[in-house]
């Protein structure tokens, strides 16, 4: 129990509340709630986009996979960043110029089809819920790591704070909150990293578990008792004596090359100097941890991950909705350049922490809870008050990550639901917010926790196989038709969901899944592109009549003034409405 961490988390929640309230006083129209009146300047928007994007997967998950998989895991941060380059090169400016206010609205504007719009709404909701799940589960994990409290408390707390904030001011409120949370997260990882690196270099470059440069597996630096909370299958890199009080044999020796199954709730004790066992599938010793891409399935899996993350970012609803808040297309592009800088700056730190945690908290490899590495490393390196304060800073940052990403997701999904399934008034937006916050909260409590980066990787694969093809082709290819888009999205999304189901089955039956089940994007994205193109060519009669004028609107430079706001047609102009309300127009 760490009192500092509790106050850190409470402080972040209070700050979020305050900033949200302060800016939601001005939010009164649908424009405010959906797109913050499209007046967010590029620098603040870039910080808000980064703040929203750096989720639990980035804050906790990246360090966790680096701890487990080593060099191969470095592709996650690369992909998370490179996705924005793809977004900028092909999507950002035209998407903003379309004048749409949600992703389904863009699809309808481009392809003039009501059924496609409804279908896109469903996909947005699925991706949103799938992405919100790991955030809430991460919150539960963080709470359970820091306090002796059940995991659902964290999920519930995040859900409540986010839902209240979003209900109060929608996009208008969360823009400031997210911009603030980016800088908070950067600080919360950067400061501990600097201190830990100082300590690490001060002790001569070797941590407790031996040097990373040695090929041998990491070792326990003292007698260590590990309690396993979920069923795990372990492997060892060398002969490992283990003492498990529950088993009848008492002390045993685990041998390399075999797998040992450990049930949830059992306790294992390892003597000082014993090699650390790892959960099956992780890098066994430091030599393989340091080396990227060792076998062919690693190679294909890496390419599949590159595919998913490079192309998936542009299909994430909460990322796209932030681009609609820019004043014009040029600002959208400039925002993205700054996002690339901010993300690159951030990702240095989780990588470093992940590497350090292999030296200081190797016991996480046994329990499989590698995502907790960021939270536990400070106290492991620096026992005492300084370590506790650093841990509190990290915990506050982690909470900022859960809050900002889930508020972004909630705004985007609630916006889509409110305008497509309800009538799009401010009250509908609030109803949709409550509904869309409840669904993932219930799921997060009832489903088992996976590796954060992996489940987020799956959401990326889903986004890349559904929205990425239709966005890219819709913006750059005149002959796209709505049946083509619909079939392509169904094929891509369906394949990913099948892979997801297989993955869950394989987890319960011994982890037999090959690389294309664990990360299917390489195949599913290709399939989605091909079917979209083939069906579009086959239904060439359905090319909308106004394709030329839509293309002109998407691509004509901003000063020519072709941009028209679709929300104006439906909800009226924001400024006019507030003025009418105040009754000052007759003055």
């Amino acid at each position: 129990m760490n009192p500092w961490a509790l106050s850190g988390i409470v402080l972040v929640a209070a700050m979020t509340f305050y900033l949200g309230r302060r800016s939601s006083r001005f939010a009164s129209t649908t424009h405010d709630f959906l797109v913050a009146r499209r007046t967010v300047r590029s620098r603040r928007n870039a910080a808000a986009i980064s703040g929203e994007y750096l989720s639990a997967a980035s804050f906790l998950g990246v360090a966790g996979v680096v701890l487990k998989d080593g060099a191969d895991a470095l592709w996650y941060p690369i992909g998370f960043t490179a996705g924005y380059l793809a977004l900028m090169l092909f999507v950002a400016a035209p998407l903003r110029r379309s004048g749409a206010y949600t992703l389904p609205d863009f699809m309808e504007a481009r392809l003039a089809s009501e059924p496609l719009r409804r279908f896109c709404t469903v996909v947005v909701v699925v991706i949103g819920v799938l992405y919100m799940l790991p955030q809430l589960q991460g919150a539960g994990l963080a709470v359970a790591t820091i306090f002796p409290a059940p995991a659902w408390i964290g999920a519930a707390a995040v859900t409540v704070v986010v839902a209240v904030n979003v209900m109060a001011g929608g996009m208008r409120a969360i823009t400031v909150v997210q911009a603030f949370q980016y800088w908070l997260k950067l600080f919360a990882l950067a400061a501990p990293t600097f201190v830990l690196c100082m300590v690490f270099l001060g002790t001569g470059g070797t941590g407790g578990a031996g040097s990373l440069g040695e090929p041998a597996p990491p070792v326990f630096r003292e007698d260590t008792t590990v309690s396993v909370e979920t069923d795990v299958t372990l492997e060892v890199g060398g002969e490992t004596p283990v003492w498990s009080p529950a088993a009848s044999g008492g002390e045993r020796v685990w041998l390399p090359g075999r797998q040992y199954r450990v049930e949830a709730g059992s306790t294992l004790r390892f003597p000082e100097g014993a090699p650390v066992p790892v959960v099956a599938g992780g890098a066994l010793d430091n030599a393989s941890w340091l080396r990227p891409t060792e076998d062919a399935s690693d190679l294909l899996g890496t390419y599949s991950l590159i595919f998913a993350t490079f192309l998936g970012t542009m299909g994430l609803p909460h990322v796209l909705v932030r681009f609609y808040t820019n004043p014009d297309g040029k600002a959208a592009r400039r925002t993205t350049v700054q996002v690339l800088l901010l993300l690159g700056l951030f990702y240095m730190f989780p990588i470093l922490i992940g590497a350090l945690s292999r030296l200081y908290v190797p016991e996480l490899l046994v329990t499989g809870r590698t995502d907790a590495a960021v939270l536990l490393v400070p106290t492991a390196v620096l026992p005492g008050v300084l370590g506790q304060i650093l841990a509190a800073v990290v915990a506050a940052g982690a909470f900022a990550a859960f809050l900002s990403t889930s508020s972004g997701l909630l705004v985007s999904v609630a916006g889509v639901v409110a305008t497509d399934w309800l009538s799009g008034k401010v009250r509908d937006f609030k109803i949709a917010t409550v509904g869309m916050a409840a669904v993932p909260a219930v799921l997060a409590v009832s489903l088992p926790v996976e590796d954060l980066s992996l489940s987020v990787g799956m959401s990326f694969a889903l986004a890349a196989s559904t929205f990425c093809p239709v966005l890219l082709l819709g913006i750059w290819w005149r002959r796209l038709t709505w049946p083509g888009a619909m079939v392509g999205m169904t094929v891509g999304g369906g394949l990913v969901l099948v892979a997801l189901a297989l993955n869950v089955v394989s987890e319960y039956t011994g982890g037999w899944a090959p690389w294309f089940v664990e990360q299917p994007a390489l195949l599913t994205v290709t399939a989605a592109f091909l079917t979209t193109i083939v069906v579009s060519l086959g239904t060439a009669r359905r090319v909308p009549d106004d394709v030329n004028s839509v293309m002109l609107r998407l691509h004509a430079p901003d000063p020519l003034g072709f941009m028209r706001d679709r929300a104006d047609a439906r909800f009226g102009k924001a400024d006019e409405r507030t003025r009418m309300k105040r009754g000052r127009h007759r003055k």
Partner: protein
Amino acid sequence: MTDDYYRDTGGIRQPDPTLGKRVPVTPEPSPPRPARQPAPPPSEPPPPPRVRRQRVVLAEPTKSTNSLRARVELEEQTSWGEMLIKDLIKAQLRSGLLLAGIVLLLLGALPVAFYYSPTFATMRLVGIPLPWLLLGVAPFPLLFGAGLWYNRLAERHERDFVDMIEN
């Protein structure tokens, strides 16, 4: 300037406060609103009147007829306008693909290189394994650089296009 003015008045345009009033250019001994201003000490000159001349913008300055015609033409999508916008789309797509190609080639070559050359995968540079530098540090400046470069290219294409339309 005008923006500030609108914010001050809650978005409502108000008539020029000096309209129809005779505002003296040189301050007179008795200012227009004597009640609000305390009598100045005799040694100092009286302060200038507080009426400020505001600029009222009734409409955007009209663009030249030439550009207006070009815009209408674009909007009506005559064959000429269609060709122009197609050229712009092609130019933008080409620079996007070029940059994406460069980045993909550089990053995409890494896994293959690591896979086929174990010596490359275990090489070290000042004590740090080379793959960690190539994967953990190098890609981020590369991506940022590519973003900056594309931003310049795209803005240049758009500027050229606007210049061409307006001439």
